[in-house]
């Protein structure tokens, strides 16, 4: 991966920039796992790094690294496909590179401040310089403005290239969706004394990202990848992409209601949230069937022509995309559905159930396909015709998936205990919380979560190692 740009089989500058984004993304992914592990240990041994590097700090860096690495990988993936799709060289890639360095410098400073300064006094200056203390979008205000500037550069590149080049369906969805994705960030950039108002707009960013625009982004990537990796027919893929957009936005936008059950907002959100979030799994099933069907069909056609080889030109990328189809449905679909109805959610809201759902859905829906795109980028960078799974790729995909699945199951058991004892029996008080936290089942579940976290980290090491070496290995195997 490191030499991917020097090798330079890339056909355009946009892809070079894409690879730069991928590299930072994978580093941040590693940072996310390390921070998660620290937080997981603190659940078991509360004295660990107490008043030195507290849970709140580890957790803040954990979730921020998550959001930022995914945004990096998304920007990278977009630059990767820009010229392919539009048939036009990116209009201002030099400016894009400046944006990349600005963003990376800003992210470095922000993370260092999180880790070293940690908390500030209760003044507006702390919000501007240290962090905003709002889960997922903690970035201080100066960085918010920086992010907006860099995103504008990125969006200008995408939009202007799109306007000059060919306007494919995939690119049209991409351009429209990115505008919404970037614009929504603004909803999280103000301060209010009213905590209900605060969380109302906060969900506009978080929910409309992860349950609407990010999902559509994944659909777009999957469409592009299916064409490139297994040679699916563009018209068919694009027709399905539009259907997916219809279903994802049709259910996801009003599915927002399930976050408005208990934050001070009116009761009518119960019905709206329940109805639309119950529909949210439907597009995920459709995406799942569609990916597998296309794969089966293209393979069938190839065999019909008498070819014995697989139609897949990039084994690791396809493996991650198939994991995505499963993971999206399991993590976002099943784990989302079973605590989304208000009758159940009043007990599960704010318990380890949410953590279980969060882990599997971020991994299943987003991490998987973005890693798939990184493998695709490597294939292009090294000019490899057919990239095959190596032992390291297999270990990477198996261990990370197994680890995340294990953490999810452990957290689900912990959440179940918590719901029964803290919420169902004891009524959610301070005392009830600690009674539930000290139950043997809960503690054991947290132990398994930490163990599975280590498994995930091992998987990540294999993955990172594979990303660093697979390009060269595949190139040499083909030579």
């Amino acid at each position, binding site marked *: 991966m490191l030499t991917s740009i020097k090798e330079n089989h890339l056909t355009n500058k946009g892809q070079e920039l894409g690879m730069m984004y991928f590299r930072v993304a994978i580093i941040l992914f590693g940072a996310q796992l390390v921070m998660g592990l620290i937080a997981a240990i603190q659940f078991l041994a509360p004295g660990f790094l107490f008043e030195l590097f507290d849970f709140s700090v580890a957790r803040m860096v954990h979730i921020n690294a998550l959001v930022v690495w995914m945004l990096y990988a998304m920007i990278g993936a977009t630059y990767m496909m820009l010229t392919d799709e539009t048939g036009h060289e990116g209009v201002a890639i030099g400016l894009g590179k400046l944006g990349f360095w600005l963003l990376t410098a800003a992210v470095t400073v922000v993370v260092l401040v999180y880790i070293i300064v940690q908390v500030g006094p209760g003044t507006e200056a702390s919000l501007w310089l240290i962090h905003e203390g709002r889960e997922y979008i903690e970035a201080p205000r100066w960085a918010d403005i920086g992010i907006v500037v860099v995103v504008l550069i990125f969006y200008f590149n995408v939009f202007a290239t799109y306007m000059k080049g060919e306007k494919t369906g995939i690119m049209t969805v991409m351009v429209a969706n990115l505008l919404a994705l970037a614009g929504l960030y603004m909803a999280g950039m103000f301060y209010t004394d009213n905590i209900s108002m605060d969380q109302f707009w906060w969900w506009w960013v978080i929910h409309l990202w992860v349950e609407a625009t990010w999902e559509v982004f994944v659909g777009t990537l999957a469409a592009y990848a299916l064409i*490139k990796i297994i*040679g699916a*027919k*563009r*018209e*068919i893929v694009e*027709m399905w992409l539009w259907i997916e957009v219809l279903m994802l936005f049709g259910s996801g936008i009003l599915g927002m209601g399930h976050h408005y059950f208990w934050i001070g907002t009116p009761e009518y959100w119960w019905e709206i949230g329940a109805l639309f979030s119950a529909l949210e*799994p439907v597009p995920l*099933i*459709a995406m*799942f*069937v569609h990916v*597998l*069907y296309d794969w*089966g*069909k293209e393979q069938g056609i190839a065999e019909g022509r008498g070819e014995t080889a697989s139609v897949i*030109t990039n084994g690791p990328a396809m493996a991650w995309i198939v994991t995505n189809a499963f993971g999206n*449905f399991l993590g976002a*679909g*099943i784990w989302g*559905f*079973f605590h989304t*109805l208000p*009758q*159940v959610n009043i*007990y599960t809201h704010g318990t380890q159930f949410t953590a279980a759902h969060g882990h599997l859905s971020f991994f299943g829906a987003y991490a998987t396909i973005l890693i798939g795109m990184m493998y695709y980028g490597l294939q292009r960078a090294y000019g490899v015709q057919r990239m095959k799974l190596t032992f390291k790729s297999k270990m990477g995909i198996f261990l990370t998936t197994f680890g995340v699945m294990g953490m999810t199951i452990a957290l689900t058991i912990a959440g*179940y205990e918590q*719901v*029964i*004892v803290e919420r*169902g*029996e004891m009524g959610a008080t301070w005392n009830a919380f600690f009674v539930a936290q000290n139950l043997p089942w809960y503690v054991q579940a947290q132990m398994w979560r930490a163990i599975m976290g280590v498994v995930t980290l091992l998987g990540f090491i294999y993955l990172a190692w594979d990303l660093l070496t697979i390009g060269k290995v595949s190139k040499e195997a083909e030579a």
Partner: protein
Amino acid sequence: MNELIVRPEITPDMFLPIFTISTLVLVFGVAYAATITLAKMGYFSKKWMNLGYLFWALQTYSLYLLSVWIQSEPFTSKVLMVTMLAYLFIPHLYFRLIEDSDRRYDSGNNIAEQKN
């Protein structure tokens, strides 16, 4: 507890059944979709589609139980059952769409863009 308040309340021993049944709703739903898909794709014979319908029936029953256990309004339960009836037709519409689009876009064997 001094007084008994009558209202929808999930007792602690009902949580496990509720979580299990809501998982089953989706698992049976996927099993139904998967069986129909694989049968339509020709991986196994059409006879297996009946197994798919059995999954659909199990899914419908699970959803019904779920709606009873979380004490939904009778109206909501009815709406859910109508939804399940619609779900019976979705895979067929879906494959109609796949076949039609294959015929429309993939029959001419035109290798318009095979650039890689």
